[in-house]
């Protein structure tokens, strides 16, 4: 089984557009939307949910007002400032550590499990999709990503599908790390802007740190050709393969508005053409075709 993660460091560079297109080009695949904060892939792939599961990723302290003697020990010991003046738990600050439970002299505090989101397994036109939604404001997106990846793998094994395509969230922190560990390749989608270059370098370091084979593609490369040149030579100097350069094309946004992938909406446009080339390279590299 092969696993490819599409990541970016910087947000909004085109991860989801590419992942969705790859899933269509692959023909048969399991797609995992690991951007559980702001999942968008379903708007292009229109999943039909077949299985839903609750995600209990963290706990929340609850104070029994009847028992509480307002001694203030919990508030003093809480490192997250989660206990208010009126001895209520601020659920946006509570990290569910249980220190308040441990220090309360009258056993007025308990830790409750909270449902922090839902994970889904769905059918999509290229096969299956594993996805999730984190309840707004919840913590522990990394754990939910791990569940999404576990589900993807389980479905791939069950259905005998040999490729998992993973759409990562932006950034390089905990949910991104959970999206790249143990994959065969990481395709970094960047754009020729000062921020794009800066974030690309950090994303490359992250892949190196976790021993993942890096690939780079430049989206909207014609927005600033000097910067694209800088990205290409940086990659060359560092022995990183550039999988392709996608031109800016307003059809990509049109396709999104229509809820379609660009390779279906406008298969003959230059952007779709280059996305197909990139997918060819990835498939060759990972020996997907035999």
């Amino acid at each position: 089984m092969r696993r490819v993660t599409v990541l970016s460091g910087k947000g909004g560079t085109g991860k989801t557009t590419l992942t969705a297109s790859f899933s269509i080009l692959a023909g048969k695949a399991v797609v995992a939307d690991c951007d559980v904060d702001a999942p968008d892939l379903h708007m292009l792939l229109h999943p039909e949910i077949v299985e839903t599961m609750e995600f209990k990723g963290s706990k929340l302290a609850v104070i029994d007002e009847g028992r509480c003697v307002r001694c203030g020990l919990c508030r003093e010991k809480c490192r997250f400032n989660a206990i208010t003046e009126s001895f209520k738990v601020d659920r946006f600050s509570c990290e569910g550590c249980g220190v308040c439970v441990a220090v309360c002299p009258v056993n007025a505090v308990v830790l409750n499990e909270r449902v922090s989101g839902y994970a889904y397994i769905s059918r999509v036109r290229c096969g299956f999709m594993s996805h999730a939604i984190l309840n707004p404001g919840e913590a522990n997106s990394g754990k939910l990503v791990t569940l999404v990846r576990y589900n993807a793998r389980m479905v791939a094994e069950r259905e005998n599908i040999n490729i998992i395509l993973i759409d990562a969230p932006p950034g390089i922190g905990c949910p991104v790390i959970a999206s790249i560990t143990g994959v065969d390749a990481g395709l970094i989608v960047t754009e020729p802007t000062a921020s794009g270059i800066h974030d690309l370098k950090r994303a490359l370091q992250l892949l190196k740190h976790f021993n993942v084979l890096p690939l780079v593609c430049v989206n909207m490369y014609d927005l600033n050709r000097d910067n694209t040149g800088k990205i290409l030579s940086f990659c060359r100097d560092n022995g990183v393969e550039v999988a392709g350069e996608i031109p800016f094309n307003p059809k990509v946004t049109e396709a999104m508005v229509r809820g379609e992938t660009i390779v279906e909406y406008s298969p003959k446009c230059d952007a779709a053409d280059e996305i197909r080339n990139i997918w060819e390279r990835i498939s060759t590299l990972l020996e997907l075709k035999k």
Partner: protein
Amino acid sequence: MVGLIVSVASGKGGTGKTSIAVNMAISIGNVQLLDCDVEEPNAHLLLHPEIIGEEPVYTLTPSIDEELCNHCGKCSGFCQYNAIFSTHERILVFPELCHGCGGCILVCPKGAIKEGRRRIGTLKRGYRGDLELVYGELDVGEPMATPMIRYIKRLIDKGRNVILDSPPGISCPVIETVKGSDFCILVTEPTPFGLHDLKIAVQVLEDMAIPFGVVVNRAGIGDRKVYDYCNDRGIPILLEIPYERRIAELYSRGIPFSLEMAEYRGRFRKLFSDVERLAGG
């Protein structure tokens, strides 16, 4: 004066948070800008500040005295994050899982655990004229952004207006950033992805009872559904920035567009005075 704390957030990444935060900061002047996107900080790439200070950022993590430890397992049993693993003979700490709650120290009957510290990144401070920029760079491979954001926010200068540039998404790092703001500007683009992620961000802010308004960036692309949604919900659209190749090109070169397109400075000042009015009411 007592300043206003305004955060700039969005569900979706790449909608233009940093660009809005920076251009607003430049336009209103005498302001403190805290870049809370510690995973991928970008404000300094537009501001080119003169860096006046740099310091390592640490988070607290347990340090175990193996001589004193009797392997009772109370600490590992207590830890909600599985950051301590203990058997009858051995005890292991996984610092990158630790949230630094200090609970293990409290429950250890032998006093074998002390508070140690672990480096998670670097904090930088700089100036561009009277604009102060504070930003953090999380070490690559380090999963915990939240303690670093908390550290940055300790430097909030209450005597001035403060702008917080949030990371994308809606989970812990975003909550940590927007918490305590007087107002939040949500930046979106008029596309299905932009709208979908805007709705998620709106839920979070309503839940947290933080007043907010919307800036539509790249207006003209996509469709009208973001406007319909804001109108239906009575959400104020504070500013529209059209999709213009010139703006995108200036951004690509690391130049805040309001420096070259002076007409925008007045618009950003108006944006901020609208925010002041809405935050007060």
